[in-house]
């Protein structure tokens, strides 16, 4: 049997997992929507960011939506590893890339569903982006790339963790990181220390790039930094995941 059909078999298994696991769908799809409501309705008026808060917050929430989906990916990868399912695949000579890519694609698919739901709700709340069709393509491209990069890193975390619980815990920093970026409020409104961290951490240029696209004023410098971070994270995640997959039995 060819490697391609192995990949398809794994992919269809991973899609079934997404569809049949209500908890992970709740975390991935509903949580970001709830967060959007909370920040825009409950807290939004307290922040002065110079523009309508919904317009400011939505790009940040898109990134949050990507990150919230990662907990489920980490747990799913780890339970395959610790329950011996990956060992079973290995003995059946299912190639590494088929097993791992299935997880990554399912994770990115979850991201897309979550972001579609989030953006839909944002529009209902008065989100009014001034992005052109080309800018929207940029948004979708960057979201896909971010989802892809963080999924590889999360797959690696999931493979390396001792148990599903520690795998979920290992993904927490990725879920928390958006709060210490310009997702919710601009970095220069934060206290010293946190401010510098927020300015230089990877998610800030990614959010600023999304914001730029959605405002119709993309910034090439931010976009290049965002691109570099995504490719870097993807590469680290891919190499770490591949090595752990081969080594751990």
């Amino acid at each position, binding site marked *: 049997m060819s490697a391609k059909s*192995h990949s398809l*078999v794994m992919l269809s298994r991973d899609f079934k997992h997404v569809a049949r696991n209500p908890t992970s769908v709740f975390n991935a799809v509903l949580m970001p929507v709830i967060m959007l409501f909370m920040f825009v309705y409950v807290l939004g008026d307290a922040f002065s960011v110079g523009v309508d808060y919904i317009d400011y917050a939505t790009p940040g929430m898109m990134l949050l939506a990507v990150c919230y989906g990662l907990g489920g990916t980490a747990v799913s990868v780890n339970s395959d590893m610790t*329950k011996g*399912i990956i060992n*079973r695949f290995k003995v*059946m000579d299912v190639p590494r890339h088929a097993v791992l890519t299935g997880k990554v694609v399912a994770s990115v698919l979850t991201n897309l569903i979550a972001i579609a739901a989030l953006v839909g709700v944002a529009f209902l709340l008065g989100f009014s982006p001034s992005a052109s069709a080309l800018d929207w393509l940029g948004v979708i491209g960057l979201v896909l790339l971010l989802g892809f990069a963080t999924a590889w890193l999360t797959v690696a975390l999931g493979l390396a963790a001792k148990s599903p619980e520690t795998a979920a815990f290992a993904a927490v920093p990725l879920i928390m990181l958006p709060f210490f970026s310009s997702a919710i409020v601009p970095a220069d409104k934060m206290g010293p220390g946190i401010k510098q961290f927020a300015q230089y951490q990877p998610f800030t240029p990614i959010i600023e790039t999304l914001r730029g696209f959605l405002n119709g004023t993309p910034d090439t410098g931010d976009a290049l930094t965002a691109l570099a971070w995504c490719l870097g994270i993807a590469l680290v995640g891919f190499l770490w995941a591949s090595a752990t997959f081969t080594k751990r039995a």
Partner: protein
Amino acid sequence: MTSSAIEVSGLRKAFKDKVVLDGIDLEVPAGTVYSLLGPNGAGKTTTVNVLTTLAQADAGTVRVAGYDVATDAKAVRAAIGVTGQFAAVDELLTGQENLQLMVDLSRSATDPGIVTELLERFELIESAQKPASTYSGGMRRKLDLAMTLVGTPRIIFLDEPTTGLDPRSRRTMWAIIRDLVADGVTVFLTTQYLEEADQLADRIAVLDQGRLVAQGTAEELKRQIPGTHVRLRFTSVDELDAAARLFTDASRDDDALALRVPSDGGTKSLRNVLDRLDEYSLSAEEFSVHTPDLDDVFLALTGHTTEVGAR
């Protein structure tokens, strides 16, 4: 291909500075059941992992189905089936979907009816459309083994196939394993239970702290360990002394005021012991029959109990 299904010599494996396997030599003739017996931490799973290409040995040679696991891993994998220590079933898929997944991934499963056939053979037809998360421990194990059989492997590795199962499920599993052997399949089995090895295996190897401390048939091993005995506990040293004079082949434990009298555990020999006590107006405070278990094997072969072995 030789008539040996599995040949291992000088196998060593360490994790960092902890030696897990310290020179293992074994040979399993095709069509037989070989059981690796040992407590937790003895190195059973590591041995299975090396033999099934999941882990690499630090030293030694391992040939499975005539192929070297280090240089010809693909050929080894094509010949074997592995059921790991935990039931590796996909809980979100149904029993049927789990089996179908194996068929879709298998290189050798060509029979379109194999899924139904296996569901029937393992009495899982009724639950075939239910997710595996709803299965009992015994059903999961059966599904797990059924999944291993999809590619009709000739050599099967079973890592503690009955750990955590209730006695009835354990017996069902034994029957299934016997059926496999009747079909000519070679089985490499690890277990913590002497009884299991005794029931199933043609040859048993006792693994302790990474070394094989004994190998042989169940009969050969049992000859090396203390047999079934009756344990009598008395209330005073005088009584113990008197009883020890009656049973000259017994061994005494002065601290516990106890006497171990060899016996085959049958009613006749038990009555004999009781009658003799009665005859001399002796009565034991406590009377119990001991059959050898893994602890006895370990004590006899290694000089320490399984508790120590597990360290």
